[in-house]
């Protein structure tokens, strides 16, 4: 009996790829975070649409960042690009299998890298911090961590 239990425990550890969360859990987290990201980016885009700025919960950095020339890329609002990016990440989270894993990882890496750059701009070029942009950067970091875990642990498996 004891040997059976020991055997079952060993088999259980071997059949799950290391100790990563179940892929379903990772996809649920990614779906939730990407949806939240769409909400944050949409709020920033609407607030900036008529030359305004999102409301900062403390300090006045949001106005400064919104008025900066860095709030646009080739004439397109960075917030609008964010909505598109989060939308793609949401799609990747909803797609099962290796296509979803690879796409999620690649998109999240782009989003994470660009968020790092935007945060650097806020700190060292614009000299102001927009809390909504920081929130988006945090969400993108979580998405990168979740998608990287999903890709590394589950790609090529049938989990």
């Amino acid at each position, binding site marked *: 009996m004891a040997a059976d239990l020991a055997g079952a425990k060993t088999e259980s550890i071997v059949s799950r790829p290391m100790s990563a969360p179940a892929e379903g859990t990772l996809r649920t987290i990614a779906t939730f975070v990407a949806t939240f990201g769409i909400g944050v980016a949409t709020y920033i885009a609407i607030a900036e649409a*008529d*030359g*305004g*700025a999102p409301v900062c919960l403390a300090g*006045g950095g*949001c*106005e*400064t960042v*919104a*008025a*900066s*020339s*860095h*709030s*646009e*890329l*080739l004439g397109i609002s960075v917030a609008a690009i964010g909505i598109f990016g989060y939308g793609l990440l949401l799609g990747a989270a909803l797609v099962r299998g*290796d296509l979803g894993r*690879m796409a999620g*990882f*690649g*998109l999240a*890496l*782009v989003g994470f*890298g*660009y968020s790092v*750059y935007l945060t650097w*701009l806020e700190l060292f*070029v*614009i*000299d*102001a911090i927009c809390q909504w942009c920081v929130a988006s950067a945090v969400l993108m970091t979580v998405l990168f961590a979740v998608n990287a875990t999903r*890709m*590394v642990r589950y*790609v*090529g*498996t*049938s989990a």
Partner: protein
Amino acid sequence: MSAEAEQAERRERLIKLGSATAFLAIVVVAVLIVIGQSQGDGGDASSIDDAAEVRRELGGIPQRGLVLGDPGAKVTLIEFGDLQCPVCKGYAEEVIPQVIQSKVRSGEAKLDFRNFTIIDEESIDAAAAAIAAGQQGRGWDFVELFYRNQGIEATGYVTDEFLTAVAEAAGVPDVEQWNAARASNRVIDRVGAETAEAQRLGFSGTPSFAVEGPANGLETLGTPGSAGDLEAAVENAR
């Protein structure tokens, strides 16, 4: 080959593909950063853009020094700016034009640009050039054109050549006189006095705004977030 071995091989192949995806993603980020850094780098004396747009924006509005609008307007909206400041450029392009159209062109308020040089010595050179342009009735043309052609701050783009190109595009009639004026102690001292005034009002960054009108005298506004906020401040000051 067993199913497990096949799966292991497939997984290895996909991990390699994932590495390629990571590389591609890094390239995409690098391209986005290069585009972001290169867009509107400005600061190019050989290519001063948007002169026609600025002429349209300011056409028909009286200018005296760096004050734009009807000298008899009861409300004065004061902007303290540094010509090298990228956020001020954003305001010049996206916020100020609406205020000019709604409040200055109508004669409800006049707009007074004052220099608050916070970045480096080149900001003082640019400020002096703007004041000197103002002495020939082209101060606001100079300020607006400088912002639209602004380079990356503190990179040495504010050269005599660049300032002269902006002055010429702004329509300064006598460039020789403008050159003499911008180098004069009187103009340099005025830049210092305006910066000291901004500090006395408690401002620490640019752009900062104040409004002066019959209702409440001089009020500091800080950095309002939109043209609507500035328009409301003008209305409250009447």
